[in-house]
C-alpha cells in the first residue's frame, strides 16, 4: 500500500539541514505499524511529509501509494486518495462546526473516489454512529472544530474524524500523548475498531503505553532521521526497559 524509499527531507526554509536521511518503510493493507523514537528523530516529520505538508521538501527518494508516486500531490489530493493524518496539535477553527467541516470533507473525498455523497440528514446518521466509538455526546457535532476543547477532547476528535472519513491509510501522530488512562483506552479502542483488512494504521509515538491496548504487527525505531531498527512488539517492550541509547550506538556504527 505504502512504500517509502530512501526518503530524504529538509525544511523548505533551510535546505542545509536534513531531517529525514534515507527512510525506507513498507506498509501493507491490514497492518498496524508503530514508529517510535526519541524527540527530534523525525517521526512527526515523516507523517507530515506523507500527508503533504508544504513546509517540507523531499530532496531524494520517493513515496509510492498503491504503486504510484504521490510526491507531486497536494495535501487535499492525498486525502482524496484515502490518506489521513491525526494531528499532534489539532488546529482550532472557531465558527466552523465539526459537522460542517466533516460533511464538506466527507463529500469532497466521496466525490473524488466516485462514491455516493451524503445529504445533511444521511451524513448526520453516519456521524452519529461514529460518535459512540469515541464516547462523545451528540452535541460534539455542533461544536466548533477543536475550539476550547481540552487536550483529550482534541485527540478524541481526531479519532472521530478518522472514523467519519474512513481513510485507507492513517498516520496517528502522538495521538496517545497527553491522555489520561481512560481517554487512552477510548482512543485505543477506536483505533482497534477502525483497523481492518482493507486499511492500514501507523502509530507514531513516544511511549510504549498505547501498545498495551493496540497490538502492532511491526514496530520501527527512528533515530536521527532513519529507521534504526524494525521488529515486532517485543522491540517496543525492550525500548521501554532499556531506552534508546543502545540503538543510538548501533546507529552511529551504521
Amino acid at each position, binding site marked *: 500500500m505504502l512504500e517509502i524509499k530512501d526518503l530524504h527531507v529538509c525544511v523548505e526554509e533551510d535546505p542545509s539541514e536534513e531531517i529525514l536521511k534515507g527512510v525506507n518503510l513498507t506498509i501493507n493493507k491490514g497492518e498496524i505499524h508503530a514508529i517510535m523514537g526519541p524527540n527530534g528523530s523525525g517521526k512527526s516529520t515523516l507523517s507530515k511529509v506523507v500527508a503533504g505538508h508544504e513546509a517540507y521538501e523531499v530532496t531524494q527518494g520517493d513515496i509510492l501509494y498503491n504503486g504510484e508516486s504521490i510526491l507531486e500531490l*497536494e495535501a487535499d489530493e492525498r486525502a482524496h486518495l484515502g490518506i489521513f493524518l491525526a*494531528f499532534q496539535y489539532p*488546529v482550532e477553527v472557531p*465558527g466552523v462546526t465539526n459537522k460542517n467541516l466533516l460533511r*464538506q*470533507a466527507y463529500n*469532497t473525498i466521496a466525490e473524488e473516489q466516485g462514491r455516493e455523497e451524503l445529504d445533511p440528514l444521511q451524513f448526520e446518521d453516519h456521524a452519529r454512529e461514529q460518535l459512540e466509538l469515541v464516547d462523545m455526546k451528540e452535541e460534539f457535532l455542533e461544536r466548533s472544530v477543536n475550539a476550547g476543547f481540552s487536550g483529550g477532547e482534541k485527540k478524541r476528535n481526531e479519532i472521530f474524524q478518522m472514523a467519519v472519513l474512513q481513510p485507507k491509510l492513517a498516520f496517528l501522530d502522538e495521538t496517545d500523548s497527553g491522555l489520561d488512562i481512560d481517554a487512552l483506552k477510548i482512543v485505543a479502542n477506536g483505533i482497534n475498531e477502525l483497523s481492518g483488512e482493507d486499511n492500514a494504521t501507523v502509530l507514531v509515538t513516544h511511549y510504549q503505553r498505547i501498545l498495551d491496548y493496540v497490538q502492532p504487527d511491526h514496530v520501527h525505531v527512528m533515530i536521527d532521521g532513519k529507521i534504526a531498527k524494525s521488529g515486532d512488539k517485543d522491540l517496543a517492550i525492550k525500548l521501554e526497559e532499556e531506552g534508546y541509547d543502545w540503538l543510538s550506538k548501533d546507529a552511529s556504527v551504521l
Partner: protein
Amino acid sequence: MGKVKQQKERTFLQDLLNFQGSLNGKSKFLDEVRLKGAEEVRNISFPTKKLEDWKFISLRDLYKDSYELASDLDLEVPDISEHYLPESKGARLTFVNGSFSAEHSSTEDIPEEVLIGNIAKLAEEDNELLKKHLNKYVENNFEKDVFSSFNKAFLKDGVFVYVPEGLTVDVPLHLLFVQTDADTNYFTTSRSVVVADKESEVTIVEDHIGLADNKYFNLPVVEINAEEESYVKHTKIQRDSREAIHIARTAAFVHHHANYESYTITRGAKLSRNEPRISQRDEEVEFTVDGLVLIDGDQVSDTHSVMDHRFSHCESHQLHKCVINGNAHSVFNGKIFVRKDAQKIDSFQENRNLLLSRKGLVNTKPQLEIFADDVVCTHGATVGQLEQDELFYLMSRGLNEQQAREMLIYAFALETIENITVDSVQDLLVDEVHQFTENQLDSKLTA
C-alpha cells in the same frame, strides 16, 4: 505644491456654495441648519496629512475632483429589490443617491406609536421631536469637524426614528442607502437620527450599497440617543462602489442603564473613514463598538473611534478585526477616554489584523487617556497571517485550498459578526467572506 492644494480646496468649497443656494426654501428650520453648516465649513479647513488624526491616509483622491450633488442629476434607478432584507419587508426606508424614495420604502410593520419618516418631510411639518434631537449628538461629539458640517450644509432627506417609552420594536429597521451608476462624480450626504426613549428597544441596519464601479463621495452622519434603560442595536454594512469615497460619522449618547451595540462591516469603497464616537451620559451603561474590515486591491479603510467614559460604572467593548489582501491599507486608531472621577470602568479593546499579502499595510494605534484611578482598561493589537499549519490541517481533511482559506477567514471574522441578531445579515456576511476569499485566490493565482 501648497498653492495647488489650496486651489483644489477652493474649487471644492466653491462647488459646495453653488449648490447651497438651490437647496433652500421649504423649511425655515432646515434652511437655518444648512446655513449654519455652510458657515462652519467656511471657517474650518479640510484635513490634510499634517493633522495627527489624518496622518495615515491621503484625501487627495477626494480633493482632486469636483462633485455634483447627486439629487441634481437625473439618474436612472434600476431594480434594487434584491437588496431588501427579508426581516424588514415592512420596515425599510430607502434613499437613492441621497434622496428619499417612497417607492422603495415601507413602514407597515412598524408599530404606529413609532415616529419614523424622512427628515425633509418632518421638517416641513415643523416636527418638534426632530427639532429637539437633530444635530444635538453630532454637534456634541464632533467639534469643529468639517465633514459633519458639510453634511449639515446639505441636510435635506434622511431618517428620523423616535421609539417612545417602553416600546420594543420587533422588526429590524432597514435604512437602505443605494448609490447608482453615473457618468459624473457626485456626492451624497445622508443623515439618520435614531432616538430610543426610556425602556425601549430597537434594532437598525444601516446599509450602504454602490450598484456600480463609479466614483462618488458618500458622507453619512448617524446620530443615536439611547435613553435610560433602552437597548439600541446598530449594524452598519458598507458596500459602496470600489471607486467611492466614504467618510462617515456616528455620534451616540448612552444614558443610565442603557446599552448601545454597534457592529460595522467595511467591505466597499476605495477610501473609507469610519468614525464612531460614543459618549457615556450617566452612570452604569454598556456599549459595544465592534468592527470587521475586509479589504483588498487598493482599498484603504480607516477606523477612528472614541469611547468617552464620563461617569462611573461603564462596561465597554471594542473588537476590531481586519482582513487585508493585495495592496490594501487598514488603519485603526481607538481612543479610550476615562474622565476624572469616572471610576469602575471596565473597558476592553482589541484590534486583530489578518494580513494575507506581502504588500498589504496595517497601521494600528490604541490610544488610552485615563484620568481616573480605579479602572480596568485592556487593549491589544496584533498582526498575523494565515498559518500554514492551519491550512494544512483543513487540506489534509480533503478540503481544497479555496475551501480551507475561506473557512479560516470566516473563522477569524466570525467573532465580530456572530452577535448580529438579524439572520439575513449573517447570511449576507457569509457570502461576503466567500466572495472575498474567491477574489483573494484569483489574485493569488494571477500574481
